[in-house]
């Protein structure tokens, strides 16, 4: 099969030769121009470039159908790429058989072998590789996932959470260079899911292997991973630490998919080295240059609802810089830790404001006139060519 891997670049001259000559010293997982098209003409993954550093907990986040699972399956070897390459620790594994790569998967369905008991399920990979000390290793692994007492049971006799842990143990015991987790918590209820998130994170910190976690749950990705790549329509929209992605999204998709954003149409008035000034329906606001992601004149001024301060007209708000008067409260919902307001602005748009219930400000009522304001350093500016509702979650989420 290694022949195939060697032949591949020569048979596809369209491949960029410089990209194919990957740096052999890179010890992580590197995807280059990775593409998967299906017979129907649908391109699930489109020229994806991605570096996953060794030992990181990496999340591939995106809505269903964005190509994240296909990417994962290509790394596992369960799907053959149409073009591009996958290298792991400098070795090309693009066309390596799944049983020849140091990669293991935790399947969404768990895929535990129903005819084998828990012990044999966990030992499966070791036995196939004729590893030594199977017993000691399996016992240690069952201990790690707290299933020692269940060793001789069949998978069907275990609860969902226990099966999930068996699936994790069965993959981890092989000490793969990369562990792939395909929506591993999707089948669990909310409470168990939270517990497992912490558990998996703890195990990753302990074993220090590279984990790639595929999920459509933004909260899960942000809580668990140290790097999140937001994927949409076969490409990576943005990648970075969870806080960085949340605070400084570069596209409307990321702004809406990770949490919620107010996006207000504006025109760039001036640019300086550290700040961009935008005219937003007659009001001048400023956005730091590092948070300006638009080359043209038209942009979306973005601000997270919890960063917006709300006050009576003329009140002094602790947010020098951007103040927008003339809002009218159109909806109030009290959620305990905060109050969520919808404020209708003079230009007709409704903005969301989340106000912490610190007790320092009073609650506003529907119909009251208010003033909004935010610190300029929290705002971001996106390209108006992008759809303002891209990646927005369904109501009530």
């Amino acid at each position, binding site marked *: 099969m290694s022949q195939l891997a060697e032949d591949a670049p020569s048979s596809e001259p369209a491949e960029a030769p410089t990209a194919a000559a990957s740096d052999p010293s890179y010890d992580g997982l590197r995807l280059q121009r990775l593409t998967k098209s299906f017979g129907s003409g649908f391109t699930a993954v489109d020229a994806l470039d991605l570096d996953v550093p060794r030992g990181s907990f990496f999340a591939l986040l995106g809505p269903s159908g964005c190509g994240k699972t296909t990417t994962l399956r290509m790394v596992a070897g369960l799907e053959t790429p149409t073009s591009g390459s996958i290298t792991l620790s400098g070795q090309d594994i693009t066309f390596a058989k799944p049983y020849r790569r140091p990669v293991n998967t935790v399947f969404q369905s768990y895929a535990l072998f129903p005819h084998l*008991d828990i012990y044999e399920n966990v030992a499966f990979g070791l036995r196939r590789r004729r590893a030594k000390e199977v017993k000691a290793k399996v016992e240690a692994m069952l201990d790690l996932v707290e299933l020692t007492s269940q060793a001789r049971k069949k998978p069907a006799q275990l609860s969902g959470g226990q099966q999930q842990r068996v699936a994790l143990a069965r993959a981890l015991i*092989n000490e793969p260079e990369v562990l792939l987790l395909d929506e591993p918590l999707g089948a669990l209820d909310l409470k168990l899911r939270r517990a497992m998130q912490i558990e998996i994170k703890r195990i990753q910190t302990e074993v220090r292997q590279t984990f790639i976690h595929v999920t459509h749950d933004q909260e899960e990705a942000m809580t668990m991973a140290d790097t999140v790549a937001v994927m949409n329509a076969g490409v990576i929209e943005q990648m970075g630490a969870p806080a960085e992605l949340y605070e400084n999204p570069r596209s409307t998709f990321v702004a809406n998919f990770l949490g919620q954003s107010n996006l207000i149409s504006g025109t760039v008035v001036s640019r300086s080295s550290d700040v961009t000034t935008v005219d937003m329906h007659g009001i001048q606001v400023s956005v730091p240059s590092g948070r300006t992601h638009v080359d043209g004149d038209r942009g979306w001024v973005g601000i997270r609802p919890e960063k917006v301060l709300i006050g009576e007209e003329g009140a002094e708000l602790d947010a020098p810089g951007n103040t927008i008067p003339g809002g009218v409260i159109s909806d109030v919902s009290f959620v305990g830790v905060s109050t969520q307001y919808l404020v209708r602005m003079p230009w007709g748009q409704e903005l969301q404001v989340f106000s912490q219930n610190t007790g320092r400000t009073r609650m506003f009522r529907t119909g009251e006139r208010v003033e909004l304001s935010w610190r300029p350093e929290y705002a971001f500016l996106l390209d108006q060519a992008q759809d303002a509702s891209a990646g927005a979650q369904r109501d009530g989420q």
Partner: protein
Amino acid sequence: MRWLRERLVLILGLLVLVYTFVPIFVVVGMSFNNPGGRNVYQFGSFTLDNWKDPCGPDDLCSTLLTSIQISLLATLVATVLGTLAAFALVRHDFAGRSASNLLIFLPMAAPEIVLGSSLLALFVASGFAGQLGFWTILIAHVMFCLSFVVVTVRARLAGMDDDLEQAAMDLYATPVQTFRRVTFPLVLPGILGAALLSFSLSFDDFIVTNLNSGNTTTFPMYVYGQERVGVPMQVNVVGTLMFVVSIAIVLGMELRNRRRVAA
């Protein structure tokens, strides 16, 4: 009235069971029959003679042996070929797959007399008229058992999650190991069921066999031939034994399954 209404399903169920089992109990009872007079279909007196000498009547055991040989061979060939065909039909996409899926049902749907006579026509037309016998019976049995095997194994395979095989490959199992350690053990109950079905279909086939047997006589043909002069009581001994063996196999499989679930 209410008592009856609450137990109606149970009573009907028992009646159905009685209906199914009465003929079998008759066979068991008759195996201990000493008819005495001419009418062998009436219970004369109790005897163990039939059990002490099951091979007494001429040809009984030789035809039984022929039948068992044919059934075992037909089961083996049909199970192997049918299992392979089922894998091809479920796992591989090839031109004519859906047509094959449909055609495989035909031998099950066609009347046996049609299958038997057309097969005879085929054998004679291709110059095997003189060779009719053991091998032509075997070919005929493999033919009709095959569809049952394909259908049974295919159902089992189609119900299997392909994630399991992918998981095995992901856990360093080569294709051969994946088949041996995961696919085969999971499909095995289907294959065993298909083999049992094949054996009993082949063992008691009369119509197709009779048409293609030449000078060979199988056990069902022997019983049919004896029927005109009076079936020897030993036939009931054979019938009882067959019944006991099949019950034992079914119970054994059931126990194995239960233990597997409970373990």
